């Protein structure tokens, strides 16, 4: 992976000037590379990683993983039906996977009822959905490489040779 992407993945707030400095590249080259990545959809978005368990605003506090079995459609495979499903705002992630079921969804809802009514009223009745299996998430430890807790305090002694 290009070093520009590596540093941005770690810290999306880095300005092109700073990136140019630390990876020793020309500022213009860095700017145009970032623009290119954005245009190509390699860089999709810049966002903060929020520990929602601590934010505790009651919004979307409940999460569930849902395994979905699908009937593929002629000519369209799974893509069309997957799109119908992932367009729901409750679906925060959607993956087509191999194994005993086809789609894995991550659903967020205000409470257990919003999640279950999404499954019962929206998802399960869809024509190509053959079956679902819902797993409510109890605790998130790590997500996308980020450990969801405060950093341990520094254990090094403050000064040493």
């Amino acid at each position, binding site marked *: 992976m290009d070093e520009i992407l590596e540093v941005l993945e770690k810290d999306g707030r880095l300005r092109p000037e700073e990136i140019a400095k630390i990876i020793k590249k020309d500022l213009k080259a860095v700017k145009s590379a970032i623009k290119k990545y954005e245009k190509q959809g390699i860089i999709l978005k810049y966002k903060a990683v929020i520990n929602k368990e601590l934010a505790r605003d009651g919004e979307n506090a409940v999460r569930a993983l849902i395994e979905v079995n699908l009937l593929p459609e002629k000519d369209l495979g799974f893509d069309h039906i997957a799109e119908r499903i992932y367009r729901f705002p409750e679906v925060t992630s959607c993956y087509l996977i191999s194994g005993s079921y086809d789609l894995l969804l991550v659903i967020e809802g205000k409470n257990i009822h919003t999640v279950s009514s999404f499954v019962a009223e929206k998802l399960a009745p869809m024509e190509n959905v053959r079956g679902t299996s819902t797993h409510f998430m109890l605790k998130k430890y790590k997500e996308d490489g980020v450990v969801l807790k405060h950093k341990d305090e520094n254990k090094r002694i*403050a*000064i040493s*040779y």
Partner: protein
Amino acid sequence: MKDIISKRVKDLQPSGIREFFDLVMGMRDVISLGVGESDFATPWNIRETGIFALERGYTTYTSNKGLYKLRLQIARFLKARHGLEYDPDCEILITVGVSEGLDLAMRALINPGEKVVVPQPSYVSYDAVVSLCGGKPTYVYTTEKDGFKLTPQALNSAIDKNTKAVILNYPSNPTGISYTKKELEALKRVILKHNIICITDEIYDELTFDYTHTSFASLGSVKNKTLYLNGFSKNYAMTGWRVGYACGPKDIISAMTKIHQYTILCVPTISQFAAAEALSSGRRSVEAMKREYKRRREFILSGLNRLGLKCVKPSGAFYVFPSIKNTQMSSLEFAKRLLKQQKVAVVPGDAFGKNGEGFIRISYACEMDKLKEALNRIEEFLRKK
């Protein structure tokens, strides 16, 4: 009772900046650029192996020389990485960090009155271990003009008939400078001419940014004159595990092992298991840490440049050694005032030898956000001074 402490120890100069260290330790919310170890924790797979060794009950001694498995892996690693061949049976000793390796080397090699060349500025324990075994350090004061490198001429004129060895540390603590193969070849010729031993401390060897690190022993004909010291502390962020190794001619290693078996017995067993894991699977983590250090180096160099603090460009380790001569302050005064006024800790350069006066050591083993903040504070300090 006044003679209760041995003369040798009494004569050993306590570090002049102990007081400054105490000052740093006593303060809160300090951004420290004074730390001589990685800010990364040991990579998880290595820590996990240590835990597993403990779980399995590997809580006994190992052989004096260290786990055979580890010595064998070191031998294979050195062959692959530097083309060096050492026999794991009799040419490799596992030590408690390079610190122990160095101490053993001095005690094994130096008779009272014999001299060891110590280029300065250098890591603080070199001259101390020489003195502790009755040897005499011959200081060579490298200069900013020469990029803080030991030149063949300076080495040549420092050697006399009582000189037994020279200590070479590269990439260097505190300057971060290193030597190219060509420069090492030139030093090699001097060493061979005078038939002395070269003790190389290559603890930062994986953290070389601008060129491939050349191990001194790999320069052919000088291998039987070289005692190669290395360890896991800096490259694998394993300082607290205390594992290093010494490789060299059989007679030197066997003499060192003799002292080691009476004084240390063996390196902590779980640490040795963890070190073996570092060699077999630590590569990826080392590469990632190295890339991050390199980015920080660029950041700190451009920052110092902006502040008008000149420095020799470091090519390895995680230190820069800028001159603060244009501030008209001594190193200690600079460090003390920076600490008090802006809560940023650096190490005064004279801690590493008297020609370190006029410089400070900055360690960039520190998160980028903190480096940024520290540079802002140094800027503020220089503006107000």
